[in-house]
């Protein structure tokens, strides 16, 4: 296997391990930490796919920015919506 192929297979193995970890976390008694952990693992998986499989590591930094900008905007949407829902009954 070439170095490139080895890297691709290694990323795949890491993704599978993360999948196993997230399933395990679902059945562990983690309470409020559970969704945080599950989402964190999802972000880790997505980062691996973006960085290696989707070639972000080969791109100039402006293109990297273009590829992930939407995530920042999405977080604003979620954060400000939650700001409303979570503080509605506080008065």
């Amino acid at each position, binding site marked *: 296997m070439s170095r490139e*192929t080895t890297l691709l297979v290694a990323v*795949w193995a890491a993704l599978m391990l993360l999948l196993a970890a997230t399933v395990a976390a679902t059945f562990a008694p983690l309470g409020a930490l559970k969704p945080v952990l599950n989402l964190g693992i999802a972000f880790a998986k997505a980062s691996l796919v973006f960085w290696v499989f989707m070639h972000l590591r080969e791109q100039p930094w402006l293109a990297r920015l273009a590829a992930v900008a939407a995530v920042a905007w999405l977080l604003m949407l979620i954060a400000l919506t939650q700001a409303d829902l979570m503080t509605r009954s506080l008065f």
Partner: protein
Amino acid sequence: MAEHVTLTEPYVEPRQQRQADFMGMYVFLGTETMLFGGIFALVFAYRTLHPDAVAEAARHMRLWIATANTALLLTSSLFVALAVHAARRGGRRAVAGWLGLAIAFGAAFLALKGVEYWKDYTEGLMPLIGPHASVRDGPAALFIDLYFVATGLHAIHMTVGLTLLGTIATLVGGRRKGVPSQAVVVEMGGLYWHFVDVVWVFIYPLFYLARG
């Protein structure tokens, strides 16, 4: 590799064209992120408004089918990455082979998803058709319906992705698109496929693992 690239209007040099293609695809995938993002924002909202109902609804979802599906998709992503690698080195038949494997895994995903929908139907989780499960009486129905919209939209994207990969495999395999001169076609198809995987990577914890 860049020297082999066929230039089209309005570009003046190969590197510029290649970067433009990549950037265009990334921006397009950014719009797709926002498309699914709207649904995700609603999921978070209902998790905040009705935590118990959401956990209850999530317990009706088929965790093991979804886990198997996640594994299938991640593996198909590896095959697509290998196809892109082969395309860059000019391995015409390797491209078609890896893409064929990826398509098989993607089709298996859709088949499993179909089994899952059938079980949902018989259990009465679907709106409008089939029997009516009691869990659909309250706020849990909101979460279940979002699940159908999100996975349905994702399945449509999967179908588009499969068609795309199939077309590319045929074109490259039949020498109508040469590699590595037109490897960018495989690269673009690959980007789309990986992105559809990433969407699933988030659908999985948001719906199936939300059992509280």
